[in-house]
């Protein structure tokens, strides 16, 4: 019993604790709040549905989708948008939900393709800007993308488009260079851009594809720990066939305990990579490094220790198991020729959203009120237990949803609210099944206490079986579908579980308690369990005494009393024979049978006459 109460109260406590210690605020958007988080269709905002498409028809793995989401999140976050929801939907779709209004430039930014390139490193610098960007406005022109994501962060001085002359100058320098690692490629404009670049500024870490592969690239490390000037692209990411993480083999063929990432190139990639590594290996650091650039940012910049001729390289270093796996995932993602297509863009104004929320709640209240009125009409005072159980279920659902929106980032959407309103009916049905079983037992002449006990056993089985089907549908729909259907399935499953919990831990115990209250036990007229309404058979209490409405009748036989008796006769058949003999004595079974037979025969005769 104590455990029960604890289970019911636990979510409330957890929510209050979360609210107290991890309160939601502007600095802590993921914090707990007493109000559940609302989805876009209720609070207003923009939803962009992107579909990942590979140009060569290769399969998109779940890991690649994770990476794609990571890349998009990086772009959105760096753009200064807070509380954006980015989630995969199905196998190849990504849904980006941004509260408030979004300009087309942001949509263009997030839907850019993420590409991976291998470039030689020319210089590495500390992440902070060595000169103020404002001091050299033209410095940004570097021929390649100064700071990644040039077109989105248009307000950034460093992101200004390079002028044509500067590009021409760049191209000339590259043509003149002996090889892609030649430092002579760094023109003054590139150097200026490099000096101005500040990798501690999140704006410069948002990435973005579209860097020109034939030009130099000035960019940051993904973490903002360093900045680089990189030579023209040497190997394309799509030339990588696979990237796996694992323990590296040691010198004598045994497996060492050093984690690393193994790369596998295709034919073209092998040739190019051989040329690159052959050239890079003898060079001095940092020029012996090549940078793996994903989405315009440097993911990793390993140095080349030996010329790789067979197209099977491995990167080792201070990897842990997790970081190696992360890098391998990023590389596999980058090897896909992945582009994003905007499948749909949906904006809901904040006013429409709040209007829908209000109306939805209003509809729920109307529905609830109607249910309350009906159950009071049907079950009288017992209906109050239905109402109370619904209130408990409602409170639990609310708290769990608030908890989930804190813990899992669940957002309540309009289909979700519809699911909740519909759930009122499902939940109330458990109580109806239970009460009807109790009534059935009472009709069989059991005391309320026993009726509750037996009725519960029978009702429980039905409730479990029926709710299992409901839960089955919710779980399958949740895992197999997407979008609104998913939110709906979630609320349906949640309410089913809560419903069962409330019936077992609240309604049934309270009913057991009520069975001891004289008002219900003795079947008061307004209790909904009155003998009157239920046609309870007289109950033998021992010592020649009967309880129930018949006890009074037994002393003073009245003509219409037998009308109320319980008989095993179908609607179309015989009238009932009295159970009480003419002298007021209760008949024996044999006497009663005889009387019945007589009445039946008479009835049959009557029917023939008509």
């Amino acid at each position, binding site marked *: 019993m104590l455990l029960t109460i604890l289970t019911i109260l636990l979510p409330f406590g957890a929510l209050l604790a979360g609210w107290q210690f991890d309160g939601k605020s502007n600095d802590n958007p993921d914090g707990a709040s007493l109000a559940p988080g609302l989805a876009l269709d209720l609070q207003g905002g923009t939803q962009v*549905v992107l579909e990942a498409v590979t140009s060569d028809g290769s399969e998109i793995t779940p890991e690649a989708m994770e990476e794609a989401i990571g890349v998009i999140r990086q772009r959105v976050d760096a753009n200064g948008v807070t509380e954006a929801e980015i989630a995969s939907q*199905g196998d190849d779709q990504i849904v980006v939900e941004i509260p408030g209004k979004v300009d087309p430039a942001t949509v263009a930014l997030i839907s850019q393709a993420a590409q991976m390139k291998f470039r030689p490193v020319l210089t590495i610098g500390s992440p902070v800007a060595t000169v103020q960007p404002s001091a050299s406005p033209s410095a940004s022109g570097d021929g390649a993308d100064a700071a990644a994501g040039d077109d989105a962060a248009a307000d950034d001085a460093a992101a200004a488009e390079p002028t044509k002359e500067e590009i021409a100058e760049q191209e000339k320098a590259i043509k003149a260079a002996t090889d892609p690692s030649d430092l002579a490629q760094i023109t003054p404009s590139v150097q200026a851009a490099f000096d101005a670049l500040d990798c501690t500024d999140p704006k410069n870490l948002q990435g973005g594809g579209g860097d020109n592969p034939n030009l130099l690239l000035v960019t940051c490390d993904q973490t903002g720990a360093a900045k680089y000037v990189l030579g023209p692209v040497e190997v394309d990411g799509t030339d990588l066939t696979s990237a796996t993480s694992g323990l590296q083999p040691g010198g004598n063929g045994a497996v060492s305990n050093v984690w690393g990432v193994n790369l596998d190139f295709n034919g073209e990639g092998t040739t190019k990579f051989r040329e690159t590594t052959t050239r890079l290996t003898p060079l001095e650091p940092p020029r012996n490094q090549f940078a793996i650039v994903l989405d315009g940012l440097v993911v990793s910049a390993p140095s080349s220790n030996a010329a790789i001729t067979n197209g099977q390289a491995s990167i080792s270093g201070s990897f842990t198991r997790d970081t190696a796996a992360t890098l391998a995932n990023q590389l596999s993602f980058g090897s896909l020729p992945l582009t994003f297509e905007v*499948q*749909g*863009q*949906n*904006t*809901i*104004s904040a006013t*429409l959203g709040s*209007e*829908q929320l209000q*109306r*939805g709640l209003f*509809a*729920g209240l109307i*529905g*609830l009120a*109607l*249910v309350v009125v*009906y*159950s009071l009409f*049907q079950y009288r005072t017992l209906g109050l237990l239905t109402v109370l159980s619904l209130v408990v279920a409602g409170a639990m659902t609310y708290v769990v949803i608030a908890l989930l929106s804190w813990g899992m980032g669940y957002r309540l959407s309009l*289909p979700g609210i*519809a*699911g909740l309103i*519909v759930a009122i*009916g*499902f939940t*109330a*049905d458990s109580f*109806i*099944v239970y009460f*009807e079983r109790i009534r059935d037992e009472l009709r069989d002449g059991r005391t309320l206490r026993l009726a509750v006990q037996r009725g519960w056993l029978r009702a429980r089985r*039905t409730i479990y*079986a*029926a*709710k299992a*089907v*409901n839960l089955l*549908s*919710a779980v*399958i*729909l949740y*895992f*197999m*579908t997407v979008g*609104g*259907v998913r939110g709906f399935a979630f609320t*349906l499953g949640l309410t089913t579980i809560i419903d069962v919990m409330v019936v077992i831990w609240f309604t049934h115990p309270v009913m057991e308690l009520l069975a001891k209250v004289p008002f219900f036990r003795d079947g008061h007229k307004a209790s909904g369990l009155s003998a009157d*309404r239920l*046609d309870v058979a007289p109950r033998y209490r021992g010592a020649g005494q009967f309880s129930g409405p018949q006890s009074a009748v037994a002393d003073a036989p009245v003509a219409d009393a037998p009308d109320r008796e319980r008989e095993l*006769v*179908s*609607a179309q058949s*015989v009238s009932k024979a009295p159970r009480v003999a003419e002298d007021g004595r209760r008949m024996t079974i044999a006497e009663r049978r005889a009387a*019945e037979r007589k009445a*039946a*025969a008479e009835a*049959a005769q009557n029917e023939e006459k008509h």
Partner: protein
Amino acid sequence: MARGGFAQWGNDLYTGRRSYPIIQKRRVWFSIVGLFSVASILVLVFQGLNLGIDFRGGSEFTVSGTSNTDQDLAIDTVAEVVPGHEPHVTQVGPNGVRVQVSQLNNDQTTELQNALGEAYGVEPSEVTANFIGPTWGQSVSMRALWGTVVFVIAAAVFMAIYFRAWRMSVAAIVAMLLDVLVSAGVYALIGWEVTPSTIIGFLTILGFSLYDKMVVFDKVRENSVALTEQTRSTYAERANLAVNQTLVRSINTSVVALLPVAGILFVGGFLLGAGTLKDISLSLFVGIAVGATSSIFLATPLDVALREGEPKIAAHTKKVMDLRAGLVAEGADESMLAAAASGSAQLVPGHHQGHTAQPKRRR
């Protein structure tokens, strides 16, 4: 329904004093259902479902907070800004207008957004622009369809195991599918738009329909638990008693389930105008009503029709009928026959409560 009203009626149904021959008249119900199904198929084929923008693809504009909801204004504006597009204008709530056109490019979208804002006298920010690719709704509903197929199979297996009778599970699934068919027919007849929300509504119908059939079938199972150990009544009679006994529950449940949906339908359909709530609630309202009715008039008779083919039950039915014919031949009194036919669930020979008859220690 004499003196005690509804409660008294419930008592009579429970005891079998009053009994509706639902199973016995199954041919009638089957023909009615067949009629409805054929009508639904005809409506679906000839009228078709009115697919929403999520399935066709296109651009959608919603003007909110306007005092003027004249629809011609939107049609004129669209004709002016992007000639050649056929706009589809609906009112959303008391002060909103929704305009749907085929897909526009970015410039046209911005232009039309501003023009609509001007025409209705609201800020352009109050005009929201959405664009939906033609595959979006399809991909969502295809996945929903697959989810449904898997769910139906899983539910069928679950029910077959739970009831230990595959015929019962087949009856429930067939009845459920017919429910959805009829609901879809009604939806097509009214001609409201099919949106992803409608799909959600139909999925709920599946869930509710199956749930309701579970409850009714569980009563049938309970009544026929020791069927072959007695010779008083047949499976059909037991099932009929079960249906009659759950009639009160079915009515109460349907009313309680329908009331909140009626609330959404009222609010969504009349106060809010087009939108998620309206789309869901209409399909739900029809579906729940159809589902609850079919549990009684279709699923159980169908189950009986199927299970009477089961060798064990067929043999038992024959045995009971022979015995009864024998009784009639012997000139047994009619009340005994009537009692036999009404077959109350409590008449299970050899059932002893055992230790359950003893007082329980309080936990």
